[in-house]
């Protein structure tokens, strides 16, 4: 069922895994410690790589861009997309139904361009929903899963692949090239944006961090990682349109819900509850700030 990764991809993986280990190894807990690299080849290469820190951020960024180009036709996210497409079309759950009647905002079963308009208000649930929370709704309403079952295992690992991440990969890939166009015309969409903004700036935890500590200034970095200013249109567009992403250091495709979950962990906050109203609100704030950007994911990141 899995397509094989192209040889160019493996070479790329090795190189990027090596970079990832150097950067993350010195970055301590600011970056999650990389788990075993995706491929054995990558792991051994990484260990053998000389541990000299990169000369400058510019050089590092250029290296990454180069690898990204080299891999343009071989992102392992393809595997998640293919599995997600199968899951979308398969009849599953107690009601033995596929997702083909699932309405992501553009009508039953329409995936093309749907992600670029999410989060949005849905009448049937009377809520603003992002992709992940909407998929949970479809699993409950159409396929007959229990709510807790539908929310289980949102993030996969090597041993336990997540269906949710596969579905996310499939749906988001169908918005590649679309312009981000998140509406704030409904009162609940406006409210979600305002709540998300509040969450973005809320300082707390033992480190007194908020998202704004790391993402509200231009041209700053943590260790060697550039930090996008997510309050500004251009950098917000660049960041938001590059998620979900295949994380080379984890060998997994990660959704936007995962991105928020992990930044809150680094912020020393409690665990963000998957698809909670607040998580959707924060996504609404960030997605709306990225309006006008051309969606270009699933991407690939260290």
């Amino acid at each position, binding site marked *: 069922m899995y397509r094989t990764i192209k040889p160019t991809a493996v070479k790329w993986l090795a190189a990027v895994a090596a970079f990832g280990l150097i950067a993350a190894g010195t970055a301590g807990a600011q970056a999650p410690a990389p788990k075993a690299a995706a491929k054995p080849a990558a792991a051994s290469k990484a260990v053998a790589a000389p541990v000299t820190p990169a000369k400058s951020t510019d050089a590092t960024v250029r290296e990454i861009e180069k690898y990204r180009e080299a891999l343009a036709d071989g992102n392992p996210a393809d595997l998640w997309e293919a599995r997600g497409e199968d899951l979308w079309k398969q009849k599953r759950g107690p009601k033995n139904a596929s997702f083909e009647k699932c309405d992501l905002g553009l009508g039953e079963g329409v995936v093309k361009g749907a992600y670029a308009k999410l989060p949005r208000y849905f009448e049937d649930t009377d809520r603003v929903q992002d992709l992940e929370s909407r998929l949970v709704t479809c699993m409950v309403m159409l396929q007959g899963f229990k709510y807790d079952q539908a929310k289980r295992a949102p993030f996969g690992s090597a041993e336990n692949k997540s269906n949710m991440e596969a579905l996310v990969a499939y749906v988001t890939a169908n918005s590649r090239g679309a312009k981000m166009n998140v509406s704030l015309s409904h009162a609940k969409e406006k409210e979600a944006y305002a709540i998300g903004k509040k969450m973005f700036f809320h300082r707390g935890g033992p480190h007194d961090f908020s998202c704004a500590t790391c993402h509200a200034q231009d041209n700053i970095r943590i*260790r060697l990682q550039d930090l996008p200013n997510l309050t500004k249109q251009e950098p917000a567009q660049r960041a938001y349109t590059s998620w979900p992403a295949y994380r080379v250091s984890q060998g997994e495709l990660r959704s936007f819900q995962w991105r928020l979950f992990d930044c809150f962990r680094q912020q020393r906050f409690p*665990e963000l509850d998957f698809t909670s109203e607040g998580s959707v609100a924060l996504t609404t704030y960030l997605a709306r700030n990225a309006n006008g950007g051309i969606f270009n994911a699933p991407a690939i990141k260290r």
Partner: protein
Amino acid sequence: MKTTYLMATLALVAATSAQAQTKAPAPDRATEVMKAAFKERGQAKLDRLNQDKAMELCTKYTVTPIPRKLAAEIEAENVKTIPFPADGKYLGDWKAGERIAQSGVGMQFTDNPANPSGANCYACHKLAPQELSYGTIGSSLYQFGKLRGYSPDIAKYAYGKIYNSQAYAACSNMPRFGHNKILTETQIKDLVALLMDPESPVNK
């Protein structure tokens, strides 16, 4: 005359709060939604969302700078929290300090609270020139002691700054490592040595 002034003030207050209401949802609802978005996990309990007066003000003044008067209040309150070492010694072992400055372990729900925390000063500051992987959220601390002078006053300031950064710069993005119980007194002394010992690579 007095009543007109009073009425005008009241009108102004009403107008400002009305404006605030059209912009943001009722504060209670927003706070409720935010709190409900989290589950406690490991050492990270829900009380981590609570704010003291400083963080409440600093959240409000993240984009616009905090007015000088409020900043002075925050600094005055935070300076009072610093228990300077009873033995009057500020410098520990710079080698131990370098290890703490490198480590970002600690306080996340995935960390074991039984282990000591790191401080990850390098995440935000340039310190020893050998370490090229440093962040730029804070200023360069390279040659901190050499440039400021190896005086007890500067050592005391460095200790206080690491213990409670808000005491010297209200709404700083730097964590309050001692005040929020991330680091112990011994660890902070080791970090002061990293900045202030003439033998430390920071001062070479």
